[in-house]
């Protein structure tokens, strides 16, 4: 693992282990290239935020980490590689299912299954073959506690997840992702559909999860990126413009485009 990437930010926490390495990554939908030559190191147990105007490729990039883009026929990697714990995830011998167990994802639009709260959390363990009620009960409680949802829903585990509020649904989706015990959590604008109070709760949760998980979050809200993340990457037109410590990106950006964006002059 390369510890001395040219783009690795120079900050005191550099001692953290690099868990994801992206090298010369080019990505295209059909003929239109969406990502250009991305190089980046993402550190373990940190929150990394991707910011940038709509259509800059940050969500596309996020979905490359668990190969969600495989679902799109015309999507393809043109060059480069993404290594998670040293393994190129686009190698032929990589099992996508194993990868996705390792790299969980929370979507922009909360998508609880139209089943009970319990069944939502138990979905991941169940498809991995866990059948005993005791083990499932334990996972459900653990994950709901982990997502700070247990006290709110413990009395209605068997009710439909769709009866929950928007913020609860999103936290349920986070809990559901935790149930497969991933190392990395990808979050694609998890708060974009939530009101400020629900947003605050999700942010608090992300803050706590940081202890155990590596979190990458795409967000449109610069305040959120500033509040939550340790490092921030600014994307523009499919290019990584600047990547560094969050404080540095927001207080003292090196690139004039970054400065223009974080100060609200465009985007």
């Amino acid at each position, binding site marked *: 693992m390369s510890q001395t990437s040219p783009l690795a930010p120079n900050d005191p926490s550099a001692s953290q282990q690099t868990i994801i390495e992206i090298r010369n990554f080019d990505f295209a939908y059909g003929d239109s290239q969406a990502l250009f030559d991305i190089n980046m190191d993402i550190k373990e147990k940190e929150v990394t935020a991707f910011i940038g105007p709509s259509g800059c490729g940050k969500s596309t990039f996020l979905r490359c980490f668990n190969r969600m883009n495989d679902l799109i*026929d015309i999507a393809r990697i043109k060059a480069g590689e993404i290594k998670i714990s040293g393994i190129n995830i686009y190698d032929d011998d990589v099992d996508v*299912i194993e990868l996705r167990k390792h790299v969980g994802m929370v*979507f922009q639009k909360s998508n609880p299954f139209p089943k009970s709260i319990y069944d939502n959390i138990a979905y991941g363990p169940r498809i991995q073959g866990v059948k005993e009620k005791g083990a499932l009960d334990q996972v459900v409680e653990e994950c709901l506690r982990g997502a700070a949802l247990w006290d709110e829903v413990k009395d209605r585990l068997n009710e439909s997840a769709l009866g929950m509020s928007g913020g609860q649904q999103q936290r349920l989706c986070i809990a559901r992702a935790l149930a497969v015990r991933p190392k990395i959590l990808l979050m694609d604008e998890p708060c974009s559909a939530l009101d400020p109070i629900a947003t605050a709760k999700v942010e608090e949760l992300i803050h706590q999860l940081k202890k155990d998980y590596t979190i990458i979050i795409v967000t449109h809200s610069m305040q959120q990126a500033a509040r939550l993340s340790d490092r921030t990457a600014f994307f523009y037109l499919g290019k990584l413009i600047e990547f560094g410590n969050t404080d540095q990106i927001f207080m003292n950006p090196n690139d004039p485009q970054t400065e223009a964006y974080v100060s609200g002059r465009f985007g």
Partner: protein
Amino acid sequence: MPHATAHHLFSKRPTGRRRVESLLTNFFRLTSYLVILSAGYIFANIAYHGSKAVFTTQAPYINVAFLTQKPQTLHVYEPRVAYQSIQATRVEILKLKTQRRQLGSNDKLSAKSLTTAIQALEIKVEALDIERKAGRLLYSDSDYRKLARSPSEADYVYNNYAYSGGGIGPAIVGTCLLVAGSISIALTLGVLCAIYLSEYSRPGRTLQLIRLSILNLSGVPSIVFGLFGFGMFVLFFGWGVSMLAGWLTLAIMALPVIITASEESMRAIPKGFREGSLALGASKWTSIRSNVLPYALPGILTSSIMGIARVAGETAPIMFTAAFALRDQLPWQGLDKPTDFFFQGVMALPYHIYVVSSKIPQNEYTRNMQYGAAFVFLFIVGFFALSSIILRIKIRKKYSW
């Protein structure tokens, strides 16, 4: 009188466009009412006439013989006196009518008196007819054979009518078997096909071609399916006129509807459910099985209802492949070996209605059979459809988003 108010900014003004619009609205309304009215009339008519055959005035109020027996020849003994005086009166009426026609337009007075006479005679016929109906003896073939002594020729006039006695038991059983079998085959094949088309296939020209051909298949006239089934299953495979041939022919006919509707309902499932489960490490099939199919089930059931409606009512496809005009035994009777079950012809309601209404001489007794069969047939199709609908509602309640 509506009091006249001054025109203000938003006051209603009669404009041409408004008039056209209200005219159009009423036109739409009229058309819908007309359609509903005609449908209602047809159903009411069938129900009214059919209930005469299906229901009785005495307990258990349902004509069990009609629902269980096989079709038989009806032997009718009508009271000779009433019968003959009806004939005589009818002749008289005819005579008077001829007279009235020859009168010409000038003699209005005698024409009027003739009309009154005719009306009086007609009332007499009706009275005699009631007497005839009260006095007549009806025997189905099996009862007739059991008679120790037939009623005396002196008192009764004897007639017999084919297909007018007994019931439609074998046809009911046959139709239920044909519908159940063909729908199970069509649903299995159709859902598998729809899963492939909506979840696995890559969009492109081939897929469009497949879709187009499926769509075209639904436009093929049913008689063509019948001929295809006859050529393929009955002759080429050598199954003969058999239930299996009928199942497959009907299944092929229902397939396009089922595939199209099932595919649509699977496509309508939000992408989020698939992505959500895939992101949790589910394989594609697991994600389809647990997060697409269950939610698409209501739509698939709707498609099966449409399939049933299409399949159950068809006469043409089974005419050559599965239906017998008359079969004494029920499908599970007299089988040499269990597999024979699939290779026997059956009676079917639509074909039976066709036979009794166009292949035999018509009279007041066949009429009963036709309407009775049609009524029962509607009832059966309604029952199949209703059970699907109830199932759909139940599932929809369980999975709604």
